[in-house]
């Protein structure tokens, strides 16, 4: 073990690393592509990809035209979820507006709304939601029902209520009132979920791309044979090739974490060490995949294409951008064999929930196994190709 380690940091190895570093330094494009795109992608994706439900345009048909009905409409528009846009004269006109997309939701208040409320009769208000986007519709539904519930609570006390006849015994039971609490994220900031998932996506994406291009480049230029003729062993060559992009991307990863903290204000509740170590593992997985791809493709262009088709399924089946629990059940087992999934779970839990290694060890172990397997497969492929 020690002897092997000794061999790895020999002069030969250092010379190889220096050669790689010089190559990277000389090629401004590689240097830039290692640092700039990941950060830009993080900031851009992080601010653009946002599932929050705000500013939905609300149309109203108020046939009641009373202070009470206006109170209800005002209550619906109180938070940022709905913005009152137009009052319509008829339901038909409002329906047309929904189908044209000018408004996202409509409320119809019947003409006997205030009268029935005053008399203590139940009133039904119709709500039309454009449910094309199921998520938006489901969240608006919960929101509307919450508003109406608290509106009913305010109705409970007016003097009209005292005149109501005692209700039959069966109906005299009390009601359960639900108090929802958002743990770890009381403000309900939706970007935290996306950016913590993006971290893994970026590590994987950039790891695969840089690894495959640096590996293929040497072969395309025909200089690989020259490297093989040096006294360095194949493992030394590979490790020396992997090390510089690994460290450079690692630095980029650290900067990305700073972006998370200072630009997106993600709380850093858990162990940063755990996050850094697992980030390194995730990066190794990416580099392993990229190297393996480079050994089966013939040109940089082919490698690029192959990576381009490998990454989307890895990302879409990772639960990094959308919750894994929302996937159809036949797809969910696939997430277990996806390093991005495990890294996403770890990043989210350590940063936002403050979980530690004791809570996350299955994911950490899985990531470790993937890193080892992927890197050894790529080394094996590389060796076989040259042998």
């Amino acid at each position, binding site marked *: 073990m020690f002897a092997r380690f000794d061999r790895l940091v020999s002069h030969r190895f250092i010379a190889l690393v220096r050669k790689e570093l010089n190559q990277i330094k000389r090629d401004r494009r590689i240097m830039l592509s290692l640092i700039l795109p990941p950060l830009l992608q993080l900031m851009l994706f992080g601010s653009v990809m946002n599932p929050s439900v705000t500013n939905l345009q609300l149309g109203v048909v108020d046939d009641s035209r009373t202070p009470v009905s206006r109170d209800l409409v005002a209550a619906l528009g109180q938070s940022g979820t709905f913005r009152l846009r137009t009052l319509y004269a008829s339901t038909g006109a409002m329906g047309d507006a929904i189908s044209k997309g000018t408004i996202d939701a409509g409320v119809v208040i019947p003409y006997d709304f205030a009268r029935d409320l005053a008399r203590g009769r139940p009133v039904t208000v*119709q709500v039309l939601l454009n449910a094309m*986007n199921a998520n938006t519709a489901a969240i608006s*539904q*919960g929101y509307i029902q919450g508003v109406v519930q608290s509106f009913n609570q305010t109705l409970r006390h007016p003097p009209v209520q005292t005149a109501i006849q005692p209700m039959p015994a069966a109906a005299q039971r*009390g*009601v359960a009132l639900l108090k929802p609490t958002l743990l770890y*994220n009381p403000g309900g900031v939706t970007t935290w*979920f996306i950016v913590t998932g993006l971290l893994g996506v970026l590590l994987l994406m950039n790891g695969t791309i840089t690894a495959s291009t640096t590996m293929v480049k040497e072969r395309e230029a025909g200089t690989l044979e020259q490297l093989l003729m040096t006294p360095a062993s194949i493992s030394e060559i590979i490790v020396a090739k992997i090390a510089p992009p690994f460290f450079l991307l690692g630095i980029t990863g650290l900067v990305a974490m700073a972006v998370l903290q200072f630009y997106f204000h993600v709380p850093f509740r858990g162990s940063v060490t755990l996050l850094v170590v697992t980030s390194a593992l995730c990066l190794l997985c990416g580099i392993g995949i990229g190297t393996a791809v480079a050994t089966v493709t013939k040109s*940089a262009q082919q490698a690029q294409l192959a990576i381009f088709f490998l990454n989307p399924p890895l990302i879409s089946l990772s639960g990094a951008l959308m919750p894994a629990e929302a996937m159809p059940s036949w*797809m969910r087992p696939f997430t277990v064999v996806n390093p991005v999934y495990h890294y996403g779970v770890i990043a989210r839990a350590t940063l936002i929930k403050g979980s530690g290694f004791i809570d996350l060890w299955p994911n950490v172990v899985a990531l470790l196994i993937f890193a080892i397997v992927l890197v050894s497969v790529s080394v094996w492929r590389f060796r076989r190709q040259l042998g």
Partner: protein
Amino acid sequence: MRIDSLKRVVAQTRKELTELLRDRLAIALALLLPLIQLALLGSSFALIVRDLPIIVQDYDDSTASRELIDQFRASLTFRIVPWPTDSKPDIAFANGQARGALVIPRDFGRHIARGMNADVQIIVDGSDANTAKLVSGYAGGVVRSFNQAHGGGPMPTGVQTAIRFWYNPSLSSQKFYAPGIFVMALSMFPPLLATLAMAREGELKTILQVYVSNISAHEFVLGKVLAFVAVGLAEASVLLVFLFSFFGIRLAGDPTPFVLSTLLYTFCVASFGVMVGAAIPNQGAAMQAVMFGGFLLVFMLSGLMFPLSNVPVGLRWISILVWARYYIEIVRDAFLQGGGWPAVWWKVLAIGVIGTGFYAVAWRRMRRMQLEM
């Protein structure tokens, strides 16, 4: 004269298609990969969670509390996992065993029976804020139905809501996302092939043969574009069959805007590919440019995943120029909303305008290089 010109266009198109059909990788790119992408992404894109593990801390243990728990157990959204009452729910959240906790306080049943209101708490893991909001909304629904079943009812005098989900009553995420992925595939693969074909002519210098031949810039560009329009339409039909059969998506209204805009859109993306290929005579670089326009812009700024209104204003204006944005809206209208021409006419127009712009740039690029006859 015109017949001759038409013949040359057709010849160019035929040459392009023959070249394509010989290349197995290209056929896979054109037909197989989009299909895989549609199947994978179309099924996996969803925000609405099902079967979310929650734990229950019942400090009351009365008939009423058990009935409430049963209501939660019956819901498709929640799955109750066992958890000892004496350990804190945070631990279950930290290791991901549970994403929510229902806490029923002592005396819950007694309060209900006495006609008083009783508070129940649902603590939701906020690390995924969207899911947390969904879950608290669903939990509210479960509690409401508990109240209704138990005679208390949500205030006998109160306001009740009758919510109608238009266009997607089952709240299926696939009905929203699958058409979007269809658009993404159509924005990616035809221009990718077009740009590779065009850049290859530049790389191999076969473009010089075109310059000195008697084919005009219009004929050449149009011939190329038409070939990839054909590729795009073939791809669109394959994907549509899949959409109809696998995802069970149906046309909601007048299909003419969709049909016309599909023709225009394939023209638009094919022209985009040819334009990029003409501008960058290097296959690798041209491919990256197409990936930026055909994938990144579509993915981020067309409303494919998340509503465009959530994009910060400083970036949102870019979406005005993103061709896929208009097509996505037309496709969603055709498959879900059914608004027809009055809702989408200007979007069809926008695609046509952007496509013509691409074509014009590609043509100018060719014109400049062509020898004067």
